[in-house]
């Protein structure tokens, strides 16, 4: 599978090969923005590397530049005690032998932070520990994707999760997802993780969730739909956030750091060169899911379904607004020129007197009752659709 990008039209096409033929699907501009975001960030990276920016920003810029262009700039890290900087630098280094040493030092530091909190029970120590854990997750993804090295080991994760505050559901879910991604021993992704990802709020973990929801969706088809909802929702949020600002010159270092992290994450998810989807995916899936963010698609589809009449064996659907229009026309006709039909009722041999039924009014009432019934079931149907997954 490959992508063709038309940067003028801001559209993207998926060239999808099956055994027999090649499909070319125009996916629309929704998907082109992540691609553009990576390119914009990558174009900016060289200026950042050579400009007056913090070392961390420069190293992230260098990493993105390396991933996109496979070229690397030499950046010397002066602060040998800052292990995050050393790890980031090692990822683009030609001789990455030191990476494992830095990672092992970094693990030691994480454990020390945990001990600090356990010894002091201080709020500062806890928040410092949590901040470092969040940082470690992104580093783990970087190291595994680029060099295949592991930052977060199973035994460390178990210790960390044990002392997490009850409020840290997002973090707990991400740790579980990391374990599933690392071990590949599970049949499916637990519902609790899927649920946490769907309602994700922690901005510090956003890039990690974008990545994890994507890779788990690829590996675990049973939960794919739900995980992709989270993935595309977050991608959409992020892309919208950066669309306006990405070309702005004087962005603060914090914004640039987030931009490079997001661009690297989107790169890992394959938005630049190829979509890392399993080969047995259907063209329809790409067309429907990738074009619109799933949540929007799901809502639109549910509304369309609920607000339409489908007649059995006939591919015919009438949307809600047409029904409303018909209803109004019938009422007007009833007012000006009603047709009355005689209607005789008989039951158990008893004959009731003949009644003149106003046809237009009768049909209008029937349509209104149908619409009320559909609206009554709206909430239930939407929930059902979400739980089931959006696309059949």
């Amino acid at each position, binding site marked *: 599978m490959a992508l063709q990008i038309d940067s003028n039209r801001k559209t993207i096409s998926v060239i999808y090969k099956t055994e027999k033929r090649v499909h070319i699907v125009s996916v629309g501009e929704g998907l082109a923005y992540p691609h553009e975001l990576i390119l914009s960030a990558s174009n900016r990276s060289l200026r950042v590397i050579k400009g007056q920016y913090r070392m961390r920003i420069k190293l992230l810029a260098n990493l993105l530049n390396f991933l996109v262009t496979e070229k690397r700039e030499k950046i010397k890290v002066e602060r040998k005690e800052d292990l995050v900087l050393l790890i980031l630098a090692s990822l683009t280094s030609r001789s990455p032998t030191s990476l494992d040493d830095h990672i092992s030092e970094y693990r030691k530091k994480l454990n020390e932070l945990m001990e600090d909190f356990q010894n002091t029970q*201080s709020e*500062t120590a806890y928040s410092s520990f949590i901040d470092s854990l969040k940082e470690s997750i992104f580093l783990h993804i970087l190291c595994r994707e680029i060099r295949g090295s592991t930052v977060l080991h199973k035994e460390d994760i178990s210790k960390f999760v044990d002392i997490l505050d009850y409020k840290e559901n997002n973090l707990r879910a991400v740790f579980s997802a990391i374990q599933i991604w690392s071990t590949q021993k599970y049949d499916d992704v637990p519902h609790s993780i899927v649920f946490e990802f769907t309602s994700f709020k922690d901005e510090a973990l956003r890039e990690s969730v974008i990545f994890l929801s994507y890779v788990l969706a690829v590996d675990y088809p049973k939960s794919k739909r739900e995980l992709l909802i989270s993935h595309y929702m977050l991608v959409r949020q992020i892309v919208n956030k950066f669309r306006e*600002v990405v070309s702005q010159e004087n962005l*603060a270092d*914090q*914004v640039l750091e987030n931009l490079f992290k997001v661009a690297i994450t989107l790169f890992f998810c394959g938005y630049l060169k190829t979509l890392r989807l399993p080969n047995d995916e259907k063209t329809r899936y790409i067309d429907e899911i990738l074009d619109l963010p799933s949540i929007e698609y799901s809502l639109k589809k549910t509304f369309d379904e609920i607000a339409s009449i489908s007649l059995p064996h006939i591919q015919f659907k009438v949307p809600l607004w047409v029904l409303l229009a018909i209803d109004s026309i019938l009422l007007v006709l009833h007012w000006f020129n009603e047709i009355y039909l005689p209607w005789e009722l008989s039951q158990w041999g008893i004959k009731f007197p003949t009644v003149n039924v106003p046809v237009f009014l009768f049909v209008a009432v029937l349509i209104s009752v149908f619409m009320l019934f559909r609206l009554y079931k709206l909430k239930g149907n939407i929930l059902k659709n979400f739980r089931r997954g959006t696309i059949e």
Partner: protein
Amino acid sequence: MNSEKYSTTLYVASVLGKTIPSRFEVRKTLWEHFKQFADEEGLSIIEEEWKQWIVYRGTQVSFSVMDAPVDKLYFLSFRPTGENIGRWGKNQNNEATLGTLGFCGLLGSEIAIPLNDLVFKRVGLSDQDSIDISNWEITCPLSRPATKSSLGDFLRETGQTRYENIFLSVPKENEFHIFTQTFFKGIEPFPQLRNILSGFGLVKGPRSLTTAKEFGEKLATRVKEKSIFIFLEEERLLENWYENLKIFFDSSHIPTQYIDEKTVRNKLPRFAGVRANLLLEMLTKMGKQPIILQPPEEIFINDGFLCLSDVVSARQRLFGALFTYSKQGLGPKEEVQIYDDIKFETPTKYSLEMTNENVDLLARKIHKLIGRRLKIDILLTKKWKEENIEKLVEMLLESKIETEKVYYLSSRTSRFVDEYLQKSSNYRSCCYPYKILGKRIAFLKTCTETRIYPNLFSLYIELMWPKNAQITQGDLEKILWLVKKRIYRIQEFHVLKNAEPVWIFRNLRKMYLGKIRERLTIPLRLLI
């Protein structure tokens, strides 16, 4: 490139012999020398019980003597003095500076006294020994998107737009609750204040001052986060209110702002800079700092500064610790803790001593305040005994808190004036000259504008620990960042003189903190 030199009114002498003469002896000998010199030059002198002044062309000049035994140095500094120095304006300060410089010019570049063969040599400042901070970074984290610029550009834009760039970057979702006892609806200056604030949020009130405490107690956390209580009154009433009740609001995490009614009447409507100061200070107290002077990455290897100070006033004798981070994004977590169980002595106005048990107790409290292993610098507002510092550093290390350097800061030690600001291009510049004397002492000129008397003098910085280390420009850059970190006083940026932690402890001394159980913790932002 030629480096410009600027003369000062500071002299330094090296002690050559093994014995160091006492300050009293040196001062006495010097005074005799000056009296003779005044007699020869036809200058008048003023000699009273506590005054030893020389009058040069209308400027009264006083002098002070200070020793630095570690470096075997003696400092002699001259400063202008007189009546009501606190009320001197810019012109008076400038005239007095020129007068004092003129006197030293007449005195000569060397003063030899017949005591241990001391020869005082005049010290000069130079462009070469200065810290240029125009490239330091300013970030506006609340603008959408967050932006950054160099300090030089930011200050230029602020001047050109008359603070409009700041007004545009401040968030507008604020609640200003005004309390007063005099200036209710319709009574000026309340309507003026309301008009000014309404452009930046919702103005509520005015309510009676007496209801403020009860109102604060009932305020929901959600509202508290975006609210600030503003007290509008006459200065005298406000001072009393501040002294007694500020601590209640601070410990309840409610930001407060005290505004003198005269400021609202005379300054706020006329001066955009005063309005900018007020807004930035209020928003910083609310935890929404619109502009931040980022610590330069290359000089900040450590995680932050621990400032230790006594909080002594007529009504209280307490000890305080404050930790300020020099790493990005940790500002809102900064706290000040006040303890009433740390016992200490202050043998002089500028020194502090405590027993080993109390140092031990303090170290344990600091460990709780910081709560994790860090590398820090320590700032002291009084000179500590060497063994106290050694013990503290050792105890902190046991708690995995590594101390890199310990500094003593003073704004009143060896005050001298200089001619740096006589050159017009240096006025309001971002270049701050310094002078390192010996191994461990430096003077840093932190004001590049003169408004009030204290702006005339440089900050005294002494490296107290480690014993074998030397003070460097990097050390001074750290201190300068702590001074200019108070950029929320934007209109006063060029006259900011003291490091923020020192300023905070000065504010705390004005407050009556009442009875403290074990410790009192206040977010740092509320005390600025």
